[in-house]
């Protein structure tokens, strides 16, 4: 908790202006299905769609497809409560990459955190093949974030990109998963053309109606600690954290189950899975 609060109060604030949209052009758009186990003890697999844009200069932007919707709504109006149910997503992050430099943004509660990092992936090419969506794919393996990953790429698609931070193979990565299958990205669609996207990354996160959201720039180690801490908070604690900057004091929540039983909102959260297995 201490680390979390210290980051909130001591970090540098960068202000984003929602009204000035910085349009950038991508020439490749890929949608990946991400199947993932949200909690460490979960059997159930959740699914979200993630979008990859490759810009003309080879840089990429990778984000949750729902965040594209958030951006398109916030260009014209504030998101209201009725929109939330269809816009809230689990993996609400953006990975922007050029060369080996990664710019990562993720929201925790109502705050957006950002950090930059250099990642060098040491891919090992394996002579196994499989067909994905009629593309002949080859296998490659790599270790990243405390997990071993298997990727399938096609040299027929002249791009070295892939989902999340995975890149640097001699063809586009169509499928990548960790060996325990906790996170599994599979290509859903791939288009070549001109795609105008908003380069103002702050607009992809849900904004409060009154507070102009700053982005908190931290280093990766601090961010992973903050994320772990935030996800350990109980529901009550999260609400208090979200309302830290609010003039009004957060009231006590009473949430009842469909059977009428009052739920314990102060119960610790379940342990979340993240791509980076960092304590």
């Amino acid at each position, binding site marked *: 908790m201490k680390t979390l609060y210290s980051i909130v109060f001591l970090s540098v604030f960068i202000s984003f202006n929602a009204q000035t949209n910085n349009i950038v052009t991508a020439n490749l758009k890929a949608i990946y299905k991400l199947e993932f186990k949200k909690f460490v003890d979960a059997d159930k697999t959740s699914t979200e769609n993630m979008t990859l844009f*490759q810009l*003309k*200069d080879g840089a990429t932007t990778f984000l949750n497809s729902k965040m594209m919707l958030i951006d398109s709504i916030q260009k014209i109006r504030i998101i209201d409560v009725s929109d939330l149910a269809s816009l809230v997503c689990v993996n609400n992050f953006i990975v922007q990459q050029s060369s080996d430099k990664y710019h990562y943004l993720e929201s925790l509660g109502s705050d957006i955190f950002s950090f930059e990092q250099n990642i060098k992936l040491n891919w090992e090419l394996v002579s196994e093949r499989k067909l994905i969506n009629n593309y002949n794919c080859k296998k490659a393996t790599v270790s990243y974030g405390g997990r071993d990953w298997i990727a399938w790429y096609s040299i027929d698609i002249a791009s*070295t990109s892939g989902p999340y931070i995975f890149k*640097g193979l001699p*063809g586009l990565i169509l499928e990548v998963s960790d060996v325990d299958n906790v996170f599994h990205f599979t290509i*859903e669609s791939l288009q070549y053309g001109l795609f105008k996207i908003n380069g103002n990354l702050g607009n992809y996160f849900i904004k409060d109606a009154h507070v102009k959201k700053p982005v908190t720039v931290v280093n990766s180690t601090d961010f992973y600690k903050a994320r772990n801490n935030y996800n350990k908070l109980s529901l009550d604690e999260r609400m208090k954290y979200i309302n830290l900057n609010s003039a009004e004091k957060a009231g006590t929540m009473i949430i009842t189950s469909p059977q009428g039983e009052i739920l314990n909102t102060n119960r610790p959260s379940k342990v979340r899975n993240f791509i980076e297995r960092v304590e």
Partner: protein
Amino acid sequence: MPFLVQAQNATIQGVIVDANSKTVVGATIIISAEKDSDDVLSFASSDSFGKFVIEKTKSQADSIWITVRHLEYNNYKRKIANRNSSLKIELLRKTEQLAEVLIAPRKIVTIKGDTLTYDVEGLKAKKDYTIEEVIARIPGVSISENGQIKYFDKAISHLYINGLDLLEGRYNIATRGIPASAVKDIAVYKNHNHERINIGRRDSEEVSINLKIKNGQNVVFGSAKNEAAVPLLTGLADVTPIYIKAKFQSIASFKANNIGASLKSNGESLSIGDINMYKLKVEDTPIIRPTNTNGSVLSNKYWLDNESLSVTNDALLKVSDSTLVKFNINFLNEVTAIQSQSLRTFLSGVNVNDVTTVSNNELRTKRFQIGLNQEINKKNIYLKNNTNLYAANDNGIENIVLNQNQLTAGFQNSNVNISNATVVKRAFGKDKILSGGALFQYNNQSEVLHVTPAVFTQNAAVNGVSESTRQVLDISKFNAGMFSDYSFLWLKMNWTAAQNIQYNNFQFRSQLNQNPQINTIQFPFVGDFQFQKLKSITRLQTKRSIGNLNLKVSISADFLNIFTREREINDAKNESYFFLQPVFSLTYKIKNNWDSGFSISQNRAVSDFQQIFQPVVMTSFNMLSQNPPVINVVATTSFAPFISYSNILNNFYATLRGSIGKTSSDVTFASELNNQGFLTMTVLERANVVNNNSISLNVNKSVLGILKTDFSYMLSSFNNELFFNNQFINAQNQSHTIDASITVDNGTWYSFAYKANYRNGKTTFGESSIDNIFLFHGATVDLYAGPKSQWQFGAESARASATMTAKTDVNTMFNANYTYKSSSKLIFKAALLNILNTSVFQTTYGGTNAVSISQFALRPRQFTIGLTYSF
């Protein structure tokens, strides 16, 4: 050795530029041993300055291949020496870089306005072979055994192939013949207007389906199937070649089998497809009951003893964007047979009469039909002409034991029908449409029933030495009709004014005689009856929407003149009738997903030809009937409310319906049953009322691609007064019916389907009553042993009981199928049907004053192997 090390460690570096020497960022540079190999020895990508470095080529060869790829440039490929080198590679920009979909997004369903488009690859399960099986997976779709497709209980109006309606209502040839692999997507058009003249002018509640054939599909494609079975040597052969071009489509179908699949619904006549014209058409009126060779409830494959052959061909020529010509020809030859027995218990106050029937029936049906349709479908004018020639011949034989009396009944029916119908519609202004049409129809029907030994000897033309009884009927019908229909907007409401005029002239000759016939036969056993009817219906109809409220009101003024003459007794009648018939319906959209409404109608009708002809007719080996000597007027009033919930996003639908109906008639049916099981039906001139009420609930829930559930419940009751065996008794029938089905198919290694039908009926006649309960289940489990092989296990089971017998009968049938798809084109199938070799199936049904328990024989255990090939 030093050289080898140097070669493996050779460093290739360089810069990638375009024709203007501008650096190219993000190009992929691959080193391979062979020119066209995709084995990557080493690779790199160009940085923001267009530079790249491959530190180790990892090749021992003297030379290697370097390939450079970039999305916006042509591929570059060159053989280079495997040594340290620095290259400058120039890429050429692709001349025309069009937007390109490299992997199409796979959405199972796309919703655009009233059109729902389903991706076939996404929707279909592994086991699906024909497109019909895939259509059945669309939420809300149900498909009957004859192939009719319903979308939320409403039959679809058109099935298009690439936007063209080749087969009109007879689309089962296509849906059962087109392999699922040939179709790209299935579009469901809700509120669809086939006639372009209606688009923007009229609202439609019709639903249509379009099959979009894959682009790369061969011009001629289709499927061929054959099966052979033992120990009863049986087989099946089907070929459905399909030819689809932009301006010409043709579907032929050659089918033959004796494995229990009827082909009667394969290839029917082309039709005019206009509701006004259907109302003018005179249907076949078989008077003698045809030889029954049908089982019930259970799938045909278990009981249908058949030899069937059907050949059909449908062709469509698209003359222009708005003009189509369609031609079809069908031939059917089918022999069906069944062995059955039944116990029918008639209640008559305190008395109970049992009729037992054991029968062994066979029926041969031959049918030939040829049709031509021409259609002009423009924005302001619509014209359709249909010409049809139809000839059919039925020959049946029944060997019966009726209450221990042995009988043989021979049945023949020949039917020839020629018709021509034209419909024209013309638009005036933005919203007015005038339509009209004319129909000419000639029909000739000959029926013969020959029963040995003689029956009804005490009633029909008494002759002490009779050996057999023979009923001969000959009916010729001429029918001409016209309609006009004018739709317009007035007082902000859509109005339709319609006028129908129809003229019928029927000639009916009948003779019921004993063989040999010594005495001269007289009326009523011989008849020469003429029937003429002039009918005029003037109808005014309007509908209005006010917010969420939709109102429909119609009133029609019906005028009828009926002239009848029985020449044998020189008795002529000429009666005229005038009725005002209102119908009122109201629907209200309570909220987005909730609809409610009701309809009220009052209708009066007079007896038609079949209820008026005067001679006595033997309609089956054990039934003699005679129409009343008066023209009967039947008045029906009904009130039907409903409330429904539909949520297309969650695929959840529920409807609760009620119906209260009352039918009043000027006559009461009277029947008399003798101890030998012979029934005489007459009619008394006494007013009669039938009350018919029901309430039903239907719930449907689907999870796209995984689960589909249906549940329906119906409570219905029926009561009226009957005159049976010389006494008036109030007959009541009440039944509870539950239908449920569940299908689980998530595209993994298994799928499961279950359906159940439960009926609990009570028939009460005076002081006696009989309860009958029938429960039917069917379940299928599919197991996929791998991507190519599939096991299917099926069971159908029924439990039938009625309180008139102590015995409850349970019959269960099992079958197992193995399918091996050796390729996407060839399928091998092996099947074991009726594994337990169950010999009979029992069912029960409660009628007005009788409850029957009937059994029919099943096909013996069969082992079948077969091949299906799509081309």
